[in-house]
């Protein structure tokens, strides 16, 4: 099984941010999207997540266009944005309750993905008292509520310490190994090393990119006109 993204176009007024972006990604793999700030990485992920409407394009999964089938998209696709989509005054458990059915929440906390993320350590703490790493883990936990197949990640471990990063990346690795499909916008070498395939978003178009792990290379490539 694979997901196919076809000719996604997006304009903000006269500014053309995405000019026909297309790619394919197989189940059990991870695609890394690189690009300078403002190149359209977040816009692309928001479109795939159903947050933004594209001017044109399709997102095919199992023969269905997920951009035109919000119900199916909501059950198959999860999105972790850069910011924290949490209700700050409420506890981690209350935040999870917004997305999980009670039984599913109990199951996941018992030995599922929420346990892997270590959310049981701070279930009763209000979100605004959690550290950056805990908040990110909670956001990811919320996103994974419906057992999605496709996970869209926008710089998921930016500004986190190494321990938090390691824990989150391990969770993504497990997701991929269980047949999940990851699309990740990133600049971070740790995150990029998790990917099997990379693309560079430049001038509104996605170019194939061979990431070698060489630290200075992505910078040079981003600067190239």
């Amino acid at each position: 099984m694979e997901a196919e993204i076809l000719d996604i176009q997006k304009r903000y007024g006269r500014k053309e941010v995405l000019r026909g972006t297309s790619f394919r990604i197989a189940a059990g793999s991870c695609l890394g999207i690189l690009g300078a700030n403002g190149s359209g990485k977040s816009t692309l992920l928001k479109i795939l997540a159903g947050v933004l409407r594209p001017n044109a394009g399709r997102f095919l999964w199992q023969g269905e266009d997920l951009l035109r089938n919000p119900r199916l998209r909501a059950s198959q696709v999860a999105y972790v944005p850069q910011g924290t989509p949490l209700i700050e005054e409420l506890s981690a458990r209350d935040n999870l309750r917004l997305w999980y059915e009670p039984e599913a929440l109990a199951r996941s906390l018992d030995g599922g993905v929420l346990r892997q993320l270590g959310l049981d350590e701070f279930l009763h703490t209000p979100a605004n008292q959690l550290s950056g790493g805990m908040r990110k883990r909670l956001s990811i936990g919320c996103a994974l509520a419906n057992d999605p197949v496709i996970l869209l990640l926008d710089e998921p471990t930016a500004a986190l310490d190494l321990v938090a990063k390691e824990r989150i990346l391990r969770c993504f690795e497990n997701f991929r190994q269980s047949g999940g499909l990851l699309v990740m916008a990133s600049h971070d070498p740790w995150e990029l090393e998790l990917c099997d395939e990379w693309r560079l978003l430049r001038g509104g178009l996605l170019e194939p990119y061979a990431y070698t792990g060489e630290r200075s290379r992505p910078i040079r490539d981003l600067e190239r006109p």
Partner: protein
Amino acid sequence: MKRFLTYFRLQLRRAARLLPRMLAVTLLLAVLTALAALLISGLHAGDEAAAEPVRIGLVGDLEENMLAEGLQMLESMDSSRFSIRFEPMDEAEAASALRRGRIDGYALIPAGFAEAMMRGEHRPITYVSASGSADIGAQMMRELAETISRLVLETENAVYGAQDFVADRLPGVDPYRAGDGLVFRYALRLMDRERLYDRQTVDPDGALSLPAYYLCGLSLLFLMLWAISCVPLFAGRSRELGRLLQADGLGAAGQVLAEYLSYVLLMLCGLLAAGLLAGLLLGRFGLRVPELEDGGLPRFALGALPTALMICALQFLLFELAGGTVGGVLLQFLSAVLQGYLAGCFYPTNVFPEGLRRFGAVLPAGAGMARLQALLLRGSAGIGAVWLWLAMLLSAAVLLRRRQNRS
């Protein structure tokens, strides 16, 4: 629907966490409002002697016989000596005193005013007041000045006309002595304090008693300022969450409705506490509203609910617009003060220019004030502007949220 109910329940939980802090601020606000009500009622209960007299400068030839006598009479009358003080001065002195606020206005009496009148000419007295003074004092002063100049003018016309009549028709009588006699009789009648005037107070149709008027004004102002205690509820909202909920099927309308309803419930708790406290305080200090004396308070409170809902919708929209804490507080405060002023919470709106009065009446606060006043006057108020504003404000909040979610 399931997602809406879950989101609504969580919003209620959020509101409940804020309740203690909100109640503390609400009670403080209620005490301040009750104190303001007591202060206002105390000011209006003061006796006439305690009131500050209107100070009027007189510029011009005051040596003329009739004019000097007329002014002296005015200053001696019971009805005016406590309320008006005349101060003779030259024009430069009067202009300077008016600029510094030492006098409320001055009258310019043209040279030869009395002689001109005897010849049948009309030389009007010019009254000068400070520009932009649209308050009740200035309005009353203008009325007073007009009354005084008319009184002096008509009296002198009558005296000089009588002198001419005596000179023409009664050859054996000295017209000047007859004129003086006429003035003295007029003065005696005017000085007859017991029968000078009889004052009655009648409540005209469409007018509230002063306590009722300020009950409306202060209630509305309280409602508008109350939102400041709820800033954390709105400032802490995550826009990312709104976007995800929208993508997941809970659109802008559902989000706004869930948040608005929880906000309304929070407000009702606050209003109940504040109403009880304010009622206790006002009852203890004996402040009474005649319109509510036949058990009309519960009816008024129920009837005021649509106004409270509409003000909540306004505050909700303002918080949507502002985003942050500082912006939210500032916007709520400015909106409350500006709209409160234009709606007549501080001054009765009939002292405003016509255009401003009409503008104030169509604003949400103006519509709310009209409804509260109608409730006290007639015991009921039709559905109209308040419900229309409620629908428009909530729709605007939904559109704004949709726009934020799609950005």
